[in-house]
């Protein structure tokens, strides 16, 4: 059974493209949330294997969501990969320092996104199985 990935992004189009990429190309089970609040609720309820979190969102931004996720003992171990549009603005080390597993840059290549995510999360074997 494929890994479950929760995508938290306020942009419906990006959620859809990322969902298609992770489902169709990566073979993951994808959950989506349109806001940080909703994302945290879904994470608590569904306990996904990983969370792809957009940094720039209205109301509750990615940093705050990350903080809340990491402060919740039930879900703090779920790896979070940040999705950012900032040009070279955040490096892997900085994201890790903030408690995230890594960074994915926007715009992403949907054909490569599952592989990049797997590499960050150390799911290379899983990725190869679906490739």
């Amino acid at each position, binding site marked *: 059974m494929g890994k479950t990935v929760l995508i938290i992004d306020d*942009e419906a*189009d*990006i959620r*859809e*493209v*990322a969902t*298609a*990429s992770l489902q*169709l*190309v990566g073979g993951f089970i994808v959950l989506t949330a349109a806001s940080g609040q909703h994302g945290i609720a879904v994470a608590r309820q569904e306990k996904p294997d990983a969370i792809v979190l957009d940094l*720039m969102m209205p109301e509750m931004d990615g940093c705050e969501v990350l903080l809340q996720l990491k402060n919740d003992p039930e879900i703090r171990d779920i790896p979070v990969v940040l999705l950012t*549009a*900032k*040009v*070279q603005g955040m*490096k892997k*080390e900085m994201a890790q320092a903030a408690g995230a597993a890594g960074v994915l840059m*926007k*715009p*992403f*290549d*949907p*054909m490569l*996104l599952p592989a990049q995510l797997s590499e960050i999360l150390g799911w290379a074997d899983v990725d190869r199985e679906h490739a």
Partner: protein
Amino acid sequence: MARGLRFWVILTSVAGFVLLGVVSWVSYHTTRELIAANQRLTEKRKAIEELTSLHLLLDDAESSSRGYALTGSPEYLHTYSLALAQLDSTRQIVRHDFSSTASHRRGLAELDALIDARLTVMQELIRARQEQGFFAAVDIVQSDRSRKLTDQIRRRIVVMQNEEHNDLLDREQESRQRAHSTTSAVTLASGVGLVLLVAALLFINRLLRHRERVQAALHNAERVQRAILNSANHSMISTDVTGRILTTNAAAQKWLHYSQKELIGASICVLHDSRELQARAEGLGKAMGMTIPSDFQALIEKAKYGVPDSIECSYVRKNGERFPVSLSVTALRNEAGELSGYLMIATDISERRKVERMKDEFVSVVSHELRTPLTSIKGALGLLAGGAVGTLPESGRRMLQLALNNTERLTRLVNDILDLDRIESGRLALHKETCAVAALMRESASSVRVLAESAHVVVEAVPAGHAVEVDSGRMVQVFVNLLGNAIKFSSPGSKVVFAAETRGDTIIFTVKDRGRGIPADKLDRVFERFEQVDASDSREKGGSGLGLAICRGIVQQHGGRIWAESELGLGSTFSVELPLAVSEPVAARA
């Protein structure tokens, strides 16, 4: 001109005063001589009169002696005695008057002898009357002796009087001549002196007028300067060496809400934030290896050594409000080269800061708002082209690839614009670490492998040893850009060589292609934004025209330099020179 005039003023004044001094001296001495001469003339006249009175007294004495001889009345003896007494006195005076020259003394001796002889005759007459009676006295009177003596005395006196008279005339003549010549000389000298003083006055007048003109010109220049200062859109404040404010312009008063009177004499530190001064003092002190007081010294420490200093800091208004300024501090020196004060020119950068904030917000919005649709477009197209959502006919795939390529191009353009903005605004944060040169080169070459393969170009990387202290991501971005350009402009089957070699304490990376080359006049311009060798390159080669500008910015921020060499038709070489790291690379340490 003023120096020449001053010389003539001094010369003519001194000459005029010297001449008038000489005239005064001559006049004084001449007057004294004239007074003395006049006195001598008076004495001469008096001597002549004394001789006459001597003669008259002798006559009186003789008349009295004869009266006694004729009458025997003692009354005549009394008048005789009185006449003799007066005669004695007058003779003393005459002796004094006629004692100056040998001629006088001779004449006087002769006169004295004659007078004594005549007095002897008078005494003989009186004695004869007393002792021998009337007739004996008459005999003496009738004798010729007395008359002869009287005639001799009269002649002697006349001679002496004539001599004195002639002398008197000579002296009067001499005095007149001397007075005349002196008057002429004094008149002439006074005239010349007056002319010289008038000339001096004229020169002084010209000097004063010249000075007035110079002062007027100075005042005018000062007015113009003040007008310029007051119309300048900069706060200009000058201080003495201790930081006391000496002058301010209108902008300074207006911005800071202080009057000119309030600012003059105040310490410049009242216009600064004490915390900023403290921070600057600490920062400067650290850099210069010394302790700097967090007061006025913190502002001028660099400028006082002649180092132009520009500071971004806050000015504090009278009401405590702060506003950001760009402050330029310059040391002022006098003609002798000694430090005389400081000039503080401040530009209000509130607007600039506002624009920078707006730009930051704009960049942030562009970064997010442009990338979000681009992400969706690229993602959707990518899924289509990758066949994830089904198979498309060949013509559809070509159109899709076209759309995807241009999405990539638009993404690069957005990335490049945002990168360049960060570099040019100095907001590009570099995360430097010591990196092995070989690792950087391998990563760069690896990043362009797909591109090179699709262009049928071989990238030959010749990794070198050593290490550099760089932001590896940014430096790989530079090399990838240079390699990408080299690949794009190389013909299929050709080779791009990526090498590095040390030179002293630097290392030079070179990316060499065998492409079409760059004309000499465009070698420098290719590093400018939107500058491409051929205007069609951006369309045909897919570049944004910003890549090399970004490369230059990144390299410069690493303390390095980038340049291009080329021969038309033979190819180009792009070189990047970076300082070698002093420590071991991160990977090697690990």
